[in-house]
């Protein structure tokens, strides 16, 4: 029962009194409305915008949030209203649903946001009214396509357990996944082009020899062309066989259009090999060579546009069929008319109706070769009608095909755009994530530096160093810190981690904890211990190729740009010297800061330290003795 008419239920029940005298037996007892209360206004405060409605309006749909007791969870005692922290614009249509019984989809609303709202308020989207249902379904479908695209992108990620065959198939289908695939892609493309050009050049007259007339190049340089052809066909054969091997479903692959094109492209060659130079069959052999032109269709693997064209033609099959049919009809009609009109004239080229077909086609497509022209007046009249109608008939289905092509093309463009956007989006997300991670590390370092300063530094230094972290940030950082303490591990950034991995491999510092931050945290407290440990300085046995990464600005992609720092021995040496220096810094932090830093780690923009006070925590590589000057320069 539509709840719009729920308001008329009292009337319907009252009208039932009309049955009473007719009835012969007693009526059942009417249900009591025990929760009888005066219909009251309910205030729904949605993010500050107040909506008001009658309680009975909401009670119409008891299986939704607003109609059930679930809304009591949102009741605000002080203000005596129901508060929802949701989008007030979307709430309009939801409340209208209660009022009118019809759910409308506002066109300017994002489909996922709207769906979320509906889910929150417990309304199933299937009841969207007919007026808005089409639009809703369209948008939903688009959204689904987008999600599917995303999923397909994820599938591009190399699955760890792909066997060789699957890898190969993926390489064939998506050339951009690996370098080898790209190479293969370009090589095959090149050879297709070579093959097509060869076929074309073969027939060009090459200049005459002494006693023969102009020969096509193919006959003059038979061997060369044969070798070229052989090479191309070999490549194509190998490619086909590889694809066949790698295909997940060989039967399906063999049935696909592209594989048929491949086969048709290379088969003539093999047939030609097999056939002898028999005169009878050489005619047929020549015909077979025509099929070599199919190699050009192999380009459709390389060209998106070609594929779209093919797909368009497939999807416009009905329009094309209609075009063909109407053309055929028109051709037959006009050919007949022209034949009989021109029958009278002498030396008429319109010898039969099929002969007139040629004239009709040429005229209707406005080609007008002029090899057949009507001579009688009637013929000319009908000829002009024919050409006029030809324009019409051909022009009619063309817009449909064009619009189909445009739609599919734009769909593809959208897919490409989405891919590019996704890349950019992922990059942004990466940066943001690492930014916040860096922020945490940064704040930790700052905290430690503050500790150091408390020990030694002057007031102004402290002022400079104390970053204004928001309460939220500090709470978050505190949380991360607690986690660190809980797990007895610490957060590091990527580069540090890589270095630490290398170091643990080198096993130079057995007693070292793999993270710099712990180093930091222990700085203030157990630095002294560290220093006292007799850590041997490594010699130059460290491989020179040890990269010391440098952070770029946070706005760059975080593919680590590794640059070779100074002598790696000094790197490992620097650790111990770092300790030593840190020891010094306890006494004179200022000096320590300057000398311990060579590389400036990028700070997230929000936390850029002012001045050059702190360009980074003391985990920076202290300079090897030879370049200690440069470090100070870097800092200043």
């Amino acid at each position, binding site marked *: *029962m*539509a709840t*719009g*008419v*729920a*308001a*008329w*239920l*009292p*009337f*319907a*029940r*009252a*009208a*039932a*009194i*009309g*049955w*009473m*005298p*007719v*009835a*012969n*037996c*007693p*009526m059942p*007892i*009417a249900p*009591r*409305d025990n929760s*009888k209360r*005066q*219909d009251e206004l309910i205030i729904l405060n949605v993010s500050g915008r107040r909506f008001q409605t*009658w309680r*009975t309006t909401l009670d119409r749909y008891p299986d939704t949030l607003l109609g059930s007791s679930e809304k009591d969870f949102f009741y605000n005692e002080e203000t005596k209203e129901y508060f929802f922290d949701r989008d007030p614009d979307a709430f309009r249509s939801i409340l209208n649903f209660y*009022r*009118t019984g019809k759910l409308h989809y506002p066109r300017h609303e994002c489909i996922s946001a709207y769906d979320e709202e509906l889910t929150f308020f417990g309304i199933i989207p299937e009841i969207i009214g007919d007026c808005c249902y089409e639009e809703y379904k369209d948008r939903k479908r688009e959204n689904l396509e987008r999600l599917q695209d995303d999923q397909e992108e994820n599938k591009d990620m190399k699955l760890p357990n792909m066997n060789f065959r699957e890898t190969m198939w993926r390489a064939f289908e998506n050339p951009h996944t690996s370098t080898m695939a790209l190479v293969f892609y370009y090589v095959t493309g090149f050879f297709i082009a070579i093959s097509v050009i060869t076929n074309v050049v073969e027939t060009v007259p090459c200049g005459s020899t002494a006693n023969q007339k102009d020969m096509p190049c193919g006959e003059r340089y038979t061997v060369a062309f044969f070798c070229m052809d052989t090479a191309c066909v070999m490549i194509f054969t190998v490619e086909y066989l590889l694809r066949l091997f790698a295909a997940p479903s060989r039967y399906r692959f063999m049935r696909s259009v592209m594989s048929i094109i491949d086969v048709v492209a290379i088969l003539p060659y093999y047939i030609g090999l097999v056939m002898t130079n028999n005169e009878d069959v050489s005619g047929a052999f020549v015909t077979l060579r025509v099929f070599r032109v199919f190699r050009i269709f192999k380009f459709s693997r390389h060209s998106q546009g070609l594929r779209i064209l093919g797909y368009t033609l497939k999807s416009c099959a009905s329009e094309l069929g209609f075009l063909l049919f109407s053309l055929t009809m028109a051709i037959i009609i006009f050919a007949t008319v022209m034949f009989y009109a021109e029958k009278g004239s002498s030396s008429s080229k319109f010898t039969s109706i099929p002969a007139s077909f040629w004239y009709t086609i040429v005229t209707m497509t406005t080609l007008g070769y002029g090899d057949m022209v009507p001579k009688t007046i009637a013929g000319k009249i009908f000829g002009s009608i024919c050409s006029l109608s030809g324009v019409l008939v051909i022009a009619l289905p063309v817009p449909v095909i064009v619009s189909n092509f445009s739609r599919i093309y734009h769909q593809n463009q959208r897919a490409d755009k989405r891919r590019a956007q996704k890349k950019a989006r992922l990059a942004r997300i990466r940066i943001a994530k690492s930014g916040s991670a860096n922020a945490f590390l940064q704040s930790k370092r700052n905290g430690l530096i503050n500790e150091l300063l408390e020990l030694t530094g002057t007031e102004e230094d402290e002022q400079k160093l104390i970053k204004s972290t928001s309460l939220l940030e500090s709470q978050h950082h505190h949380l991360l810190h607690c986690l660190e303490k809980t797990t007895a591990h610490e957060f590091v950034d990527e580069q540090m981690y890589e270095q630490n991995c290398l170091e643990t491999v080198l096993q130079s510092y057995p007693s070292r904890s793999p993270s710099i931050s712990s180093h930091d945290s222990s700085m203030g407290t157990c630095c002294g211990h560290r220093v006292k440990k007799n850590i041997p300085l490594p010699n130059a046995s460290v491989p020179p190729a040890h990269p010391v990464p440098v952070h770029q600005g946070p706005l760059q992609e975080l593919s680590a740009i590794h640059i070779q720092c100074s002598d790696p021995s000094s790197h490992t040496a620097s650790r111990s010297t770092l300790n030593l220096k840190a020891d010094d810094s306890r006494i004179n932090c200022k000096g320590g800061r300057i000398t311990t830093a060579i590389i400036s780690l990028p700070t997230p923009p929000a936390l850029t330290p002012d001045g050059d006070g702190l360009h980074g925590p003391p985990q920076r590589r202290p300079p090897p003795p030879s370049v200690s000057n440069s470090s100070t320069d870097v800092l200043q």
Partner: protein
Amino acid sequence: GKRIVYIKYQIFAMYKADDDLEMTMVCHRPEGLDQLEAQTNFSKRELQVLYRGFKNECPSGVVNEETFKQIYSQFFPHGDASTYAHYLFNAFDTGHSGSIKFEDFVTALSILLRGTVTEKLQWTFNLYDINRDGYINKEEMTDIVRAIYDMMGKYTYPVLKHDAPKQHVDAFFQKMDKNRDGVVTLDEFILSCQEDENIMRSLQLFENVI
């Protein structure tokens, strides 16, 4: 008094000579709340509730027979309530204007829900007396009873026999037609109903509907 408001389709009304168009484009406003309260047995609040429901379903302020049938049919999805709705419509439309205004609506409801037993029975008699001649004959009653049975639909238990309405009407006349003249007058009707306890009780059934 009644105010009939012509909305923007006035221009169309000029071109179209249809009276129907004027009728459907008319927006009706009921008499004031105070007047209605005086005329009926409803309180102001109840009238407000009723009007809101009325106006919600019929924004133009009047109900024509089609809409009336549609609304009523929605309460009885099993069968065909259109015939009975037709009779109801005629009973509500006391002015025979072809449409029910809110005043008619609320007046009838007032009788049905808040009226005296006699008033209710009078209204019911009016409903049964299709041609409004003051007598209920067998044909009229058969029509009414058949309309009521139609609302049941096809799937009933026990299965609906074809002559069930007729039997029902015979029983009815047996009870109501005191002087066996083949018709039931208002007085006979009221008397007979007052004698039947079941009917008396069932008339009070919907007192608290609002």
